[in-house]
């Protein structure tokens, strides 16, 4: 049991239990944003149901001065605003922690725990007295607890009122109610509890060069900056906000103020089969084009992904992964589409995959994806996930290099074609195995017939084995050649290390945190986060250099491990899996446990070596 009096400054976690659709989301993000503005590293995870109104929903906030903001289930404080889930919420607080609850009604005695402190505030009562409208009463209960927390945790009230001013600049009445609600909650706490608690926020200077952004917004921004003009999509959680954001940015940056003309075209398709078809058609014409979806959409797109692969049409596909199989848990996170995307479609197909770990990488990888798709004339997947895509993250401010020019790959201009005796689509190939393409409408000599049926290296229809194989072999060479063009792995070596930990995407923060915890237990590990597929030579070298490797990922079937065993020379016997796939973001504790339970004893005590 932790000592409830031990002071925890900028290092604790709280969980807020709410009812979906009651406005808790804005209260909770207000809280997180206030902490961010105080300069303290923070994360906010929305654990929400697949529902519009009525079901339980949770929000977790973790502050950590050292930047360890992966999810943790060690809650110091529970804000229990949902009577329906009191029982399990109260159980989850760590011993020595606190429960803040609505005391308008007496708390069921059986829920009380001797090892936690209960702080009751009659929110419903306070708000019923202060507000008239019933919807407002509900909404303001949530804002009211922000005030209490400000008192309990030392949230800077100047920061909070500054935020309210910005948020409600155009709605003074709303600002008034919000201010009043916050003050109510604050005053009640000061009058009834010993404020602040030993959980304290103290201003830092760690976030001044950072922004708060979710991955989907960042991905959309990357697509705008890369020059994407056509998007085909079909709504699906958790990827819908990619297109919402893309539309918003295009309205802002790509709409002619005088004429209203748009330098983009967004097509809401009838389904994902059509969405990917639109992207292929637009890319065939030479536009940068993309679609954004989640697992079920990828399943539907499979046939045409193979067409894009075989006909060599650049295609950018964003997959914001959620929990499968089937409909699965649409509002929960997973990394379950790795193998699906790597080999999407029938026949021999292999694709380029990018694995962003945070919104910052979403932005930059979106740009990379278009460059790679055009350089290699092939589909490229950005494998984000719900946690990255829909939660706000603190990331360094995005920077754009104004000297960037899109890599359009091998495209013949009108002048090139003018000079050529004859153009053939699939030969000659360059050192990457890529042949020049032409864009329709540029020059009469550039015409050719694009087809998903068997073709030879001149682009002609064929059913002759050698001619068919010749093209397929080049496609394999081309895919292999892309391995050192995808973003390189992030590798960090630790002196005296005995094992390697390999991970990808959104596992990053939890695994990094686990490295420190393992070290404090005598286990030193090197770290590698792969950021692209096919695996580069750097990945192979890291795998070669370790006797025992732990592959940490968020799916049941060890998909990254499988991909490594299939696509590298590393024997699978030395690859151990650490898996978390329940749908909530990974925690460091899960990694530590997974490593310690499987580590070869000889390697377990690296301090002694």
């Amino acid at each position, binding site marked *: 049991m932790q000592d409830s009096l031990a002071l925890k400054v900028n290092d604790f976690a709280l969980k807020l239990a709410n009812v979906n659709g009651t406005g808790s989301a804005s209260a909770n993000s207000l809280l997180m944003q206030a902490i*961010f*503005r105080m300069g303290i590293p923070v994360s906010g995870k929305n654990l929400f149901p697949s529902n519009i109104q009525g079901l339980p929903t949770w929000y977790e906030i973790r502050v950590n001065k050292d930047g360890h903001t992966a999810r943790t289930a060690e809650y110091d404080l529970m804000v229990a605003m949902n009577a329906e889930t009191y029982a399990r919420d109260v159980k989850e607080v760590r011993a020595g922690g606190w429960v803040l609850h609505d005391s308008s009604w007496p708390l069921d005695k059986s829920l009380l725990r001797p090892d936690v402190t209960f702080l009751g505030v009659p929110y419903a009562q306070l708000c019923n007295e202060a507000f008239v409208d019933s919807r407002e009463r509900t909404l303001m209960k949530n804002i009211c607890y922000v005030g209490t927390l400000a008192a309990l945790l030392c949230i800077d009230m100047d920061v909070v009122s500054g935020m309210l001013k910005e948020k409600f600049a155009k709605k003074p009445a709303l600002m008034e109610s919000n201010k009043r609600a916050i003050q109510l909650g604050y005053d009640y706490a000061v009058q009834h509890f010993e404020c602040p608690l030993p959980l304290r926020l103290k201003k830092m200077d760690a976030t001044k060069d950072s*922004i*708060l*952004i979710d991955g989907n917004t960042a991905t959309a*921004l990357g697509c*705008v*900056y890369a*020059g994407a*003009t*056509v998007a*085909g999509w079909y709504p699906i959680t958790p990827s819908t906000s990619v297109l919402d954001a893309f539309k918003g940015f295009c309205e802002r*940056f*790509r709409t002619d103020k005088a004429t209203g*003309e*748009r*330098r983009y*075209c*967004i*097509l809401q398709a*009838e*389904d994902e*089969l*059509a*969405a*990917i*078809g*639109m*992207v*292929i*058609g*637009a*890319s*065939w*014409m*030479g*536009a940068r*084009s993309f679609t954004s979806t989640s697992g079920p959409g990828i399943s539907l797109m499979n*046939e*045409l992904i193979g067409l894009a692969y075989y006909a060599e049409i650049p295609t950018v596909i964003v997959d914001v992964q959620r929990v499968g199989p089937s409909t699965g848990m649409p509002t929960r996170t997973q990394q379950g589409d790795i193998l699906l995307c790597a080999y999407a479609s029938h026949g021999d197909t292999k694709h380029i995959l990018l694995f962003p770990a945070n919104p910052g990488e979403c932005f930059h990888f979106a740009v990379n994806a278009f460059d790679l798709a055009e350089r290699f004339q092939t589909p490229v997947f950005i494998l984000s996930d719900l946690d990255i895509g829909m939660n706000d993250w603190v990331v360094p*401010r*995005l*920077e*754009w*290099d*104004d000297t*960037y020019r*899109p890599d359009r790959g091998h495209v013949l201009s009108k002048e090139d074609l003018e000079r050529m005796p004859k153009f053939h689509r699939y030969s000659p190939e360059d050192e990457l195995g890529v042949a020049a393409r032409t*864009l*329709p*409408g*540029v020059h*009469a000599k*550039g*015409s*050719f*017939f*694009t*087809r998903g*049926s068997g073709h030879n290296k001149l682009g002609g229809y064929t059913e002759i084995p050698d001619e068919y194989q010749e093209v397929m072999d080049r496609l394999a060479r081309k895919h292999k050649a892309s391995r050192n063009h995808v973003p390189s792995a992030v590798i960090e070596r630790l002196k005296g290390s005995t094992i390697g930990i390999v991970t990808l995407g959104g596992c990053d923060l939890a695994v990094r945190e686990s490295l420190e915890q393992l070290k404090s237990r005598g286990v030193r590990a090197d770290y590698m986060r792969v950021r692209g597929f096919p695996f580069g030579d750097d990945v192979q070298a890291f795998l070669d250099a370790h006797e025992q490797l732990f592959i940490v990922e968020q799916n049941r079937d060890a998909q990254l491990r499988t991909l490594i065993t299939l696509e590298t020379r590393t024997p699978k016997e030395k690859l151990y899996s650490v898996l978390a796939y329940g749908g909530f973001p990974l925690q460091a504790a899960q990694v530590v446990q997974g490593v310690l339970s499987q580590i070869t004893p000889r390697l377990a005590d690296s301090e002694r070596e």
Partner: protein
Amino acid sequence: MSYIKKPVARHPSLKPNTLGLTLRDYEGAMSTLCAGCGHDSITAAIVRALYELDTPPHMLAKLSGIGCSSKTPTYFVSGSHGFNSAHGRMPAIATGASAANRELTYIGVSGDGDSLSIGLGQMVHAIRRNVKMLYVIENNGVYGLTKGQFSASADVGSKSKKGEANTQAPLDPVMLALDIGATFVARSFSGDKAQLVPILKAGLRHDGFALVDVISPCVTFNDHEGSTKSYKHTRKHQLPILEADFVPFAAEITADYPEGAAHSVKMHDGSMVRFRKVAADYDPTDRANVASYLREHQRAGEVPTGLLYLDESSEDMHRAAKTVKTPLTRLTHEELCPGNAALRKLQEAFR
């Protein structure tokens, strides 16, 4: 195998069009379809329509799905850009292509299987979006390429080659298109080139989605006694209910007004469609009238043909989407990328 009929040496079509191209320049590779297949006649009509419209070959995009019909883009205009895609998925690919580059002329060629079964969803949504393209369904009542299964356009009672009668109600692309707001709806017969060519020309100039359903008999699997999509049956029951003349813009001033022109519709580029020999109670610009007229005559076992409905006033996909006139593919990086200063400013809101 059959050859598309090459014109004899002194044929007037060797006369160059305004681009200096002859009819031959609009031909494609040798057809590999069965001799006598209706699809080859449609190909020939497409060749003629494009030649007569002076279409620059490299400004033409021809797309198709999968099927015997979908193979035919290879057989016309070698100098254009072809895309033989996947079964039933051509409409979306054409939609994306047209979104990216609105300057090209788009032709989609499909079959009754490709458009009415696997691709029905994509076809109707392309109609709803009013994508500017000529969309030809080469309708033979069967899946030719997979050897003669009934398609969704087979009539109730129509017999397969083995004598089995179809029991499911047919999907009629013309009635369907009318119902969901198509702006150009035509039906023709592969054996009636005189009717088909002007329809295709009008469709190519239409400012939106032009659906042309062409009865196109499959000589190998659906041209026997008892089939309602055979040459014989179609010849016997075809009811040309109006004739359409397509008058290009340049010729418009000098053209003789044909006899009995009941309606004329001005196309967006200034050319005209003139309807002739129209039944007194038929109005090709009145959707409800067209639908009830067709329903009545089809119930009587007739196959009404012609440019059946035309609405030149509605917005195509680009106008509805307010896209710039310049094709998106031609916009420069500077016109698309907001740059670092804008990014900095934007991020003030992410604090």
